[in-house]
């Protein structure tokens, strides 16, 4: 079981030498207990303590990283079951699968747009993490060729899929092990697969039809010296997948159960139907997957999935905010109107994108609403007439804007009266409720 900070402290040198980067051994011990640092940061700990502590110091879910040519995807190291308890740390990697019975052209055609795909969401560039190549032919040379084709198109991490060690071995000749996961070791082939993973330094997925068999296998493979494992309990439907994912996370976090303390890999693409694939992927993002393998790539599905992943993995303690202040959209002149909104980043980007896209010049006053959206901030008293008036002064709006016309979001129409009292020299206009309607409003009402 996990040790407390004090129990760990007793096993440290207690010299407060600061070589670990923390001011005291106790501070370091507390971080170790919270599983936020690695014991290896202490150069002076005795071998005996090291042994005792290593079991306790390891995170309950092992961090597995695939890194290739500057692209890295990591999964594991999670500490909670519910995001509000702290946060989810490592976004599940999204991979697109091709098969070795497809022609070179077919593979290239599927891969190229997925490889090139990148989309901007609230100022962040989102992209897929890598590709999976599955052997359907069971022919090592056909597989090696397919891997070569994929590798020539993409430098991102790869997942190589086959039950046949010979086939996997052929694929591994083509790629670098650090950026590669082998899928999968099972009860038949695990010794050869473990040997290959060890030889090439790859991560290794382990598949078994029950948690019990999975635990037995991971223990055996770990004993062979392969520790970067990823697990698949074999479920493919909604209900069983959810139950297994939940149990695996609970066993790792609540029981510190090591044999299942690894990231989970899922295959929503096995559903066959693209609509069901996207729904299963959404479940996997919310419920504990570490690596997700898709069979279909199209922007209209991948874009919402990437956004969902971003949303679920947002740190709930730090709402994504933008700096309050006076922003210029499309180089406004002093005669152009002033729009007002809050500093919640989704709100800001919705408004800014609309106005910028319309080409209409405007000033945008982003008030300090503690990172809340318009309605939430208004309900919490963080976006009212008094605060807006204060920010008009604080950011020196009148130094830049001559024509005193202010547009407030339609959702807070009720504050327009108070705002007129707070800012008597301004004309207050109630704008639309949604940012998407702003350009039409600006064209019709303001020009």
């Amino acid at each position, binding site marked *: 079981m996990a040790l407390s900070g004090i129990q760990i402290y007793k096993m440290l040198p207690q010299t407060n030498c600061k070589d670990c980067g923390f001011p005291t051994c106790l501070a370091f011990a507390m971080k170790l207990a919270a599983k936020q640092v690695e014991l290896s940061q202490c150069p002076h700990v005795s071998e005996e303590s090291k042994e005792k502590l290593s079991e306790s110091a390891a995170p309950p879910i092992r961090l597995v990283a695939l890194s290739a040519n500057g692209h890295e995807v990591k999964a594991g190291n999670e500490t909670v079951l519910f995001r509000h308890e702290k946060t989810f740390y490592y976004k599940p990697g999204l991979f697109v699968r091709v098969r070795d019975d497809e022609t070179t052209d077919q593979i290239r055609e599927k891969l190229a747009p997925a490889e090139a795909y990148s989309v901007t969401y609230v100022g962040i560039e989102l992209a897929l993490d890598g590709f999976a190549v599955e052997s359907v032919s069971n022919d090592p040379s056909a597989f090696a060729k397919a891997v070569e084709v994929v590798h020539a198109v993409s430098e991102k991490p790869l997942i190589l899929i086959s039950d046949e060690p010979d086939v996997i071995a052929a694929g591994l000749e083509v790629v670098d092990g650090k950026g590669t996961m082998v899928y999968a070791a099972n009860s038949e082939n695990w010794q050869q697969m473990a040997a290959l993973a060890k030889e090439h330094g790859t991560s290794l997925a382990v598949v078994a039809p029950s948690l019990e068999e999975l635990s037995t296998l991971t223990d055996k493979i770990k004993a062979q010296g392969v520790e970067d494992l990823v697990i698949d309990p074999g479920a493919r439907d909604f209900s069983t997948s959810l139950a297994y994912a939940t149990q695996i996370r609970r066993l790792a976090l609540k029981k510190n159960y090591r044999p299942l303390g690894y990231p989970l890999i899922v295959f929503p693409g096995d559903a066959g139907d693209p609509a069901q694939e996207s729904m299963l992927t*959404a479940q996997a993002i919310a419920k504990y997957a570490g690596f997700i393998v898709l069979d279909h790539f199209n922007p209209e599905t991948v874009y*919402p999935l990437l956004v969902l992943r971003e949303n679920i993995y947002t740190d709930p303690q730090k709402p994504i905010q933008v700096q309050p202040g006076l922003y210029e959209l499309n180089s406004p002149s002093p005669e152009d109107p002033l729009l007002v909104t809050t500093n919640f980043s989704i709100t800001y980007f*919705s408004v800014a994108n609309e106005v910028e896209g319309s080409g209409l010049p405007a000033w945008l006053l982003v008030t300090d609403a503690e990172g809340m959206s318009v309605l939430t901030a208004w309900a919490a008293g963080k976006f009212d007439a008094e605060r807006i008036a204060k920010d008009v002064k604080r950011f020196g709006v009148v130094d830049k804007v001559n024509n005193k016309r202010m547009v407030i979001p339609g959702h807070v129409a009720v504050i327009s009266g108070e705002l007129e009292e707070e800012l008597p020299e301004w004309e207050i206009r109630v704008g639309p409720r949604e940012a998407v309607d702003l350009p039409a409003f600006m064209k019709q009402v303001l020009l």
Partner: protein
Amino acid sequence: MPIELVKDSWPGSVRTVTIGATPEEGGTRSRSVTVGGEKALPFMHFEAEVQNKPVVAIEIKDRRPDDWSPLLLETWGEVVDDPAAWAKAAEEAGVDLLQLSLSATDRDGNETTPEAAVAAVKAVLEASGLPLIVFGPGQAELDNALLVPIADATKGERILLGICEDKNYRTIVAAAMANDHLVNARTPMDVNLAKQLNILISDMNMPLDRIVMDPTTGALGYGIEYGYSAMERLRLAALQGDAMTQLPMLVTPGFEAWKTKESKVGDDVPEEWGDWMERAINWESLTAITLLESGADILVLRHPESVRRVKKAIDDLMAVPELA
């Protein structure tokens, strides 16, 4: 080595709430819908039997909506001009219940009258035997002016009436109590505010089995994580035994998803957004399934294809898995 599953044992459970009344129950619905009753987190079949499956409603309007995505208008076609025809079409899409959202104004821009609103509700009740949710336009005075006569005119139907908010709940709750209806208690994505409104409503002697709570949500990309976590926390509080959170939850992924730019706009958007229709349906159905995983009991949607996808997922999630 045998593995013992980690099972939570919860002291509390969610109340069951029944919407709609059949003739034997004092209404005219062909069936009623019961939600709630959870004794564990969503679909944790290994902990407790999942009594009632989450249900899906389609939102229809009393007249052609002014601000809906053209994709929705195109999909529904002519029925959007006739709430009765729309109700029938929605029923054919395979939903469990209907939500009629009243407009603030009529076709000519005049404020909706109580007579017109009552007529629309009655037309829908006649056209379809499904249980009904009725939402006012969301403006306090107008909501009261429309919902009270509707409640009176449909006594005994066990309609779920909304929107009850902290600033405007008394009149609607009183009208629901007097006429054997239910209320939808809406609060902005906050556990304590949700709890507080439930207390205020039950202080008026409204029985708790006639309240559904609506913690609201943001759409995918527009704050879904706040709604998701508020719902997860509300459900955990209910299971831990907090009586004032032990109510089924309604959310409106249709309304939220279809007001986003991704769903509403097809031209002049980034190429990386892909095909408009499929993107919009993904936006709605992925918002819905994510909230289903965090405890939604009633999901109100707008597009029939989203309904199909979400209902399929619900059916699959209701299957009891064999864990080994």
